[in-house]
């Protein structure tokens, strides 16, 4: 699996993603935001960080980078695109995903481990997760409060496009377990076609026991499996 990891000025999780893709046996390559072509790759990942300092709005300026045209084209042809944290914000700003990420309702940066439910395990990013599996992984953001209008939310729910939800230790999505005020406790969503996913939690930070959790591993392995399988066909 050849993965293009896009580095924007201000990206700071690009190297973490690189290590993580290597760990699951993929073949990561950095792309600079000024590149206009992705080259021949099987997947694209937009890392976390503060592209352009998150000035204006988180992820907004990054969408003007030359590489984003290539990312849109890649996604348009059905190529898998994963955006994490700042990457999720970019995907929304680029209209590859619906909705927006507002400032956390606490108005404070929030860095902690959260519990997540897997809401849909029949996508290329989640097929290795059992439906009842509860995940633990870190979040670290100031603008992760997912917002979409009622109509969009209803559509996301109806079409099974909510991927992860913040839950409490008992597995319920409650206000108390919602770290940022996201609508319907949404932590991640996918597009209609099922090839572009964005999420605020950091699966790449939950891939080794020594880091406290390995619950992010299956996400990357799912994608790897999918790509290897589609190559065999």
């Amino acid at each position, binding site marked *: 699996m050849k993965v293009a990891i896009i580095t924007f*000025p*201000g990206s*700071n*999780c690009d*190297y*973490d993603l690189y*290590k*993580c893709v290597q760990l699951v046996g993929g073949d990561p390559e950095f792309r*600079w935001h000024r590149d206009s072509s992705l080259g021949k790759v099987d997947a694209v990942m937009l890392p*976390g*960080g*503060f592209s*352009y*300092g*998150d*000035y204006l709005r988180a992820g907004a300026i990054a969408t003007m980078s030359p590489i984003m045209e290539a990312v849109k084209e890649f996604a348009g042809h059905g190529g898998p695109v994963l955006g994490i944290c700042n990457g999720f914000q970019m995907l929304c700003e680029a209209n590859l995903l619906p909705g927006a990420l507002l400032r956390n309702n606490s108005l*404070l*940066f*929030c*860095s*902690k481990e959260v519990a997540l439910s897997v809401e849909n395990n029949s996508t290329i990013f989640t097929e290795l997760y059992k439906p009842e599996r509860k995940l633990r992984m*870190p979040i*670290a953001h*100031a603008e992760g409060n997912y917002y979409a209008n009622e109509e969009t939310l209803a559509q996301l729910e109806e079409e099974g496009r909510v991927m992860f939800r913040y839950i409490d*230790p008992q597995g319920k999505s409650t206000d108390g377990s919602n770290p940022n005020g996201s609508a319907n406790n949404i932590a991640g969503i996918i597009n209609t076609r099922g090839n572009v996913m964005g999420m605020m939690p*950091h699966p*790449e*930070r939950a*891939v*080794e026991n*020594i*880091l406290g959790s390995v619950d992010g591993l299956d996400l990357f392995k799912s994608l790897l499996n999918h790509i290897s399988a589609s190559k065999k066909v």
Partner: protein
Amino acid sequence: MLSPQSRPGDPQITPELVSEHGLSPSEYQKIREILTREPSFTELGVFSAMWSEHCGYKNSKRMLKLLPTKAPWVIQGPGENAGVIDIGDDLALVFKIESHNHPSAVEPYQGAATGVGGILRDIFTMGARPIAILDSLRFGDLNSGRVRFLFSGVVQGVGDYGNCVGIPNIGGEVFFDKGYEDNPIVNAMCLGLMKRDSLIKGEAEGVGNLLVAVGTATGRDGIHGATFASEELSEDSQSSRPQVQVGDPFTEKLLLEASLELIHSGYITGIQDMGAAGITSSAAEMGGRSGNGVEINIDLVPVREPNMTPYEILLSESQERMLVVVKTGHLKKIQDILTKWELKADEIGCVTDDGLFRVTEGSRTVAAIPCLALTEGCPTYEREGKESSEIKNLRSKDLSHLKTRSSGYEEIFLDLLGSGNICSKRWLYQQYDTTVRTNTVIPPGADAGVIRLRENNKAIAATTDCNGRYVYLNPRMGTKAAVAEAARNLVSVGALPMAVTNNLNFGNPLKPEIYYQFREAVLGMSEACKLFETPVTGGNVSFYNETSGTPIYPTPVIGMVGIIDDTKYLTRPFFQESGDVILLLGNNTDELGGSEYIYVSEGLVAGEPPAVDLLAERQLQHSVLSMINQELLQSAHDLSEGGLACALAESALGNKTDPFGVDIILQDRLEPIPLFFGEAQGRILVSCAKNSSNQVLQTAKDHGVPCRLIGEVVPASNGFRIAGRTGNMELDIETMSNRFFNAIPTLMDKRKES
């Protein structure tokens, strides 16, 4: 020596102007002797900044020479941007702590943010990639609205800057006491990692090489910040707001990546942050260290505002700027690297062979001063020191009546668990990204933070410590306690203490009672660091921490780093399993002086602080490391504020989600109060599987460390029970947990009132 011409519009130099520049008449006389003429106005500004306490260490340098600075593993001691130690496998660890107290008292968010920015630059200009941040903070009482404003601003400033650059915060400390009401302490420490041979220094090597300014353009912000930091705060300090710089962490991130690329390119010979005193100090220090001179053409310095004078340009402290020495003929190559990172690089001068710090404007020379006169030539003083009789009286106060209390231990225990100095600090560190870079293996909330090294499976532990009350009551003993606590914190996670960076926060050194505290503190630190073999590789002195004449508690913060040989030895402070046994290393005593107990129960800061036996501390460190290396321990936790009862509570409550209870029996012939809450030094609490307890006891015995079994870890539903000979405590875990975890959030929710 070519005399500089005066510029039209320069004010006349008068004794008043000299005094406004923080220079004494005798210092001005010395300047005239060095120059063999009167200085120009621009030169006066340059001397004022370079001879300020902040840059010149004039009141501290002589004492600092008493600190141990050498060891076989020390690659770079004091005098550079940061200290460097060898950690094996061709790797080096770079680390330093620095204060931003004055700016944070005036503008907490930007003051703290730029403090983090400055310390990051000190690390990456050595050629190292920053891997962790720690912050050591002191504030007044959180019941005050102003203190809450300072506290939340500082925490957000520290957080936002580090989060944006993407460096995990792994720990530190925060302490609340009325003694810091108007003058908070904001110290930030940074650790960086590099290959040994990537080390680069802040030296202007190679006559003819180019001086290049990198990063943002120079504006009028922060002019004379170094001088500002060398004065007491007063009512007027609010009007100093323009002297506080504004940070841009995004540019910092670009500078970080670009600087590391520049250093690895081989096209540059030296690099330094334009920190305090901006272009002046970076150029003069780089010239001074190499023995060369530097020439700056002021017209070439990129500026943000029109009509800036040489004086303003030289003394501006605009953030996110670096001075780079580029090998002749390689300017284009380094510009290409910087352009990629959307940064600018402008040639502003060159390295010369005449040893002068020379500044030209058009055809006019506006300053020509020997570099060494600005750096090494800064006058140093040893001041008169005398202990304050008021503090002496406080120390000798009889506290024996506070040792007895027939009941109500639970109530006071809960008050202690909810006190700002003992309760959980989650409210803070949840605002810090602690997991970015995916190497944090012990995040904030433990005795020390730990970063694993992917390169060799070792790990680096770091901590900051200082109980300012102890130092206030007895500066020498209190400082030994700070060093000892830092070392205990490191061994508790399994690390061998290696070296120290210090941040000496004191009041006005011209006052004999302050200088006494400073001298005693340095002597105590020197003794402890020598015995623990943890040399001091650098740090920072922050004097004049006074508001309207009232000084802070003397606060010599110890930043200590250690190495864990293999990540399998990582040890955490939290109990792991019911049925494990709990052992206490070290002796309980009836000391109560300077304790959190008498502060919380009586509002008192008095008495003799707990005595430190450095040899016993060292034995204790070695015994705990030996237990950890035999893989005997399930947990280890240092005893500090709040004593044995609070340490047991911290180990039991853990991360909140999976708490345990304890069942403890203590046979000491001590009153319950000092037994439960006394802060006797040299103690560590450990837990282990039942069948390992004999080996633990034997290991302690082999090291000559008192050790005994005091109880057992039990399920949380069994509660928290401590039985002494003449008093007991019994509490349920949920009540304790609520007090411990909700204390700061509850206070901060009051934000909108008062």
